[in-house]
């Protein structure tokens, strides 16, 4: 459901060099369930499976899932005009800002004719963030980007052993942003694009009081382990969703949904599209998701 009628919703992706913006863009292009147009600075970095590419030319790549990727070489205004003219029309525009850009300034373009700004998403490198913010050359740039975010994708948490201090830094710079923990920038697109928040979280408080983690594993899970886990779920966790495979029937991908204390598990209709292994997205108040959860699927 779109709140903005026929307007194309705009997500701006900012974040400093190396944080994982392009990885996130590639992830979005692969997983999108709507027609997304992506504008990128560095066209050469777009890395999509050949099989997904429908056609491409110097300044655009069309994908078989309806997404399209175009270059910003001629500037925003020109790129925005061409996005409106794409047929079929995209429902969402994702603008990848350059590594030093203020994504807030770019977001101002998201109100142009035919567009509605959704959110500023800033990708941060969990390993290097503290060092970057202290850097005399780029510290102000990085901190400014974090401050401009509606959603912070804290990336590379699998490589970070100072998560507590990173969290403290983030909550000081921008306590209002929704925090999504990721590795390889695999953020849940429903969360990233605000739909999940609208559905489940907004009634419980401001989005900025929430965080999310995605847990992935490869081995099918025993049903009793899953049930034990739900039983021991920290009480303030409101929402868990994802696709898992049970040890009892490892070839059938199951959709898991938990809202409040009620949960549901059913076979996925379209098995072809399902990823291998398990992937669960957990959403809860900031600080409520124990890292121990990383082990729960094992």
């Amino acid at each position, binding site marked *: 459901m779109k709140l903005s009628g026929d307007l194309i919703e705009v997500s701006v992706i900012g974040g400093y060099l190396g944080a994982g913006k392009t990885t996130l863009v590639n992830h979005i292009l692969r997983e999108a369930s709507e027609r997304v147009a992506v504008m990128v600075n560095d*066209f050469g970095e777009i890395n999509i499976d050949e099989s997904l590419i429908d056609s491409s030319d110097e300044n655009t790549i069309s994908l078989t899932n309806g997404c399209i990727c175009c270059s910003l070489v001629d500037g925003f*205004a020109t790129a925005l005009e061409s996005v409106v003219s794409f047929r079929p029309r995209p429902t969402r525009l994702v603008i990848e800002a*350059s590594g*030093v850009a203020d994504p807030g*300034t770019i977001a*101002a373009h998201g109100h142009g004719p035919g567009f509605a700004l959704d959110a500023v998403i800033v990708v941060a490198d969990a390993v290097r963030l503290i060092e970057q913010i202290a850097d005399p*050359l780029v510290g102000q740039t990085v901190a400014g980007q974090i401050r401009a975010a509606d959603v912070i994708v804290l990336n590379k948490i699998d490589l970070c052993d100072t998560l507590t201090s990173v969290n403290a830094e983030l909550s000081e710079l921008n306590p209002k942003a929704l925090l999504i923990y990721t590795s390889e920038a695999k953020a849940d697109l429903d969360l990233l694009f605000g739909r999940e928040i609208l559905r489940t979280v907004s009634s419980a408080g401001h989005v900025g009081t929430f965080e999310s983690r995605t847990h992935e594993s490869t081995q099918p899970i025993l049903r009793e382990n899953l049930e034990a886990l739900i039983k021991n779920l920290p009480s303030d966790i409101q929402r868990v969703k994802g696709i898992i495979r049970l040890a009892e029937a490892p070839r059938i991908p199951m959709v898991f949904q938990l809202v409040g204390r009620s949960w549901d598990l059913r076979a996925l209709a379209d098995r072809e599209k399902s990823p291998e292994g398990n992937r669960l997205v957990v959403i809860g108040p900031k600080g409520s998701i124990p890292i121990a959860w990383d082990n729960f699927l094992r």
Partner: protein
Amino acid sequence: MNPAVPVAQAIAVQGDRILGVGTVGDLAQWGDYELDEQFKDHILMPGFVEAHSHVMAGAVWEFPYVGFYDRPDPLGHTWLGCQTIAAVVDRLAECERELKDPDQTLVAWGLDPIFLEGERLVAKHLDQISVTRPIFVFHASGHLATVNSAMMRRSGIDRYTPTPGVAKDFDGEPNGELQEPAAMSLAQDGFSAIGVAMMSSNAKWNYAREARNCGVTTIADLGTTRLTMEGQLEAWREATDDANYPARVVVAVGHFDSNSIVSLAVRLRDEEETPKLRFGIVKLVLDGSIQGFTARISWPHYVNPPPGHPGNGLWLIPPEQLADIVSGYHEAGLTVHCHCNGDEATQVFIDAVELALQRHPRWDHRHTVQHSQMTTAAQYKKMAALGINANIFSNHIFHWGDQHAAVTIGEERAARMDACATAEREGVVFSVHSDAPITPMSQLHTAWSAVNRLTASGRVLGPEERISVAKALEACTLGAAHQLKLDHDIGSLEAGKLADFAVLEEDPFEVSPAELKNIAVWGTVVGGTPHVASSK
């Protein structure tokens, strides 16, 4: 500007090149000649070389000018300054009557509200001109525009428009002022007009006419991504191939995605050059502007920034990425010209060039710090050691020097900004530039600014950084030619070089240094062909 023959009676030209310089008697050894005495009462200088300007200087003249100061256009007509809101409205009303198509947007430029007394010009003033025709007026800063109600209606700008920068009055209605690109681009057909005009043939001609009118024979359009657009290379070729086109143009490719730009710039240099159209330069923009508080300045940063300023300026390229970007162009044999207004930006560029040289030693690259406004003595010394050139924005002293001393960087650093004397002392090959249309094109003015360092209020800012007339004129000719890698062909008057002259009414070495900018220009000679200035 040939130190071996600084002054001569005559110059012999064959085809588009100089056969010799000397007395008529000396030159007679080359055989029969035809004596052309049309310039016997003029001074011939090497044609001035403006190594940092933009074709936009020609494009703006597609539209009426409503700035505060008088400004001559490329065709020689001087547009009187509009010194009141009423004068702006009258000028625009006159232009509006000349437009035939009632739907065509009236676009104007140069408005500078800080000079206009009384209330601020807003939509209601422009509505006096027309309530049906959209009107879009660019401000001189380039950061703002003011539009009328018809323009807002056509663009869907109303009290509900959420875009930041759409200025609103106390009742919440938009007042017609659009601040910064996101807001200005809502009025798309006005905002894009100058960019569209830049691609026209007429803009390219007016750019060269503007050069001719001030004695400039070679202009660098420093940094465009438009060469990737269909038909733009051909449009440049068509203009510059015309025998009447009165300038040589160096079109620098603007950095974007470096892999494709490297191959584009190399192809242009190797395959597309003609006598009047040259390539081989890539332009990078590393930081913002000092007067906009967006230049990257080393500690102690800005002295009196506006409230809410983050403390330092903006990077437009991640500093740690610069060495890789520079290396890519450097290894391809291209020359990198990097916009560095602040000294922190200069340092990052110097470090990037040093790293590129360690990776890939290469002599005589002539990479250039553009603007180089706050470059320090230590940085100039390092630049000399690495072979880096400078193109110094000397006109800033006149146009913004007072503000730099009072508001941006403070007295001490303002006194040593645009430090031509330091560059000379440390042995850096340098030029001076106008960045037209940011300041009006005129190498006599940029030289005057470097020689006198007078601000708009009339004070001498940093007397120690003044340079001699001879050095300033060398900077505007050979210095600029050197950083464009054209000094084998232009920049001085000597046998074998192209016959490119500035034709002046007075001798710059004879007038008082304070009068340098007032020397009248007859026009130019480009490749042996005279081009009279339009005011003549």
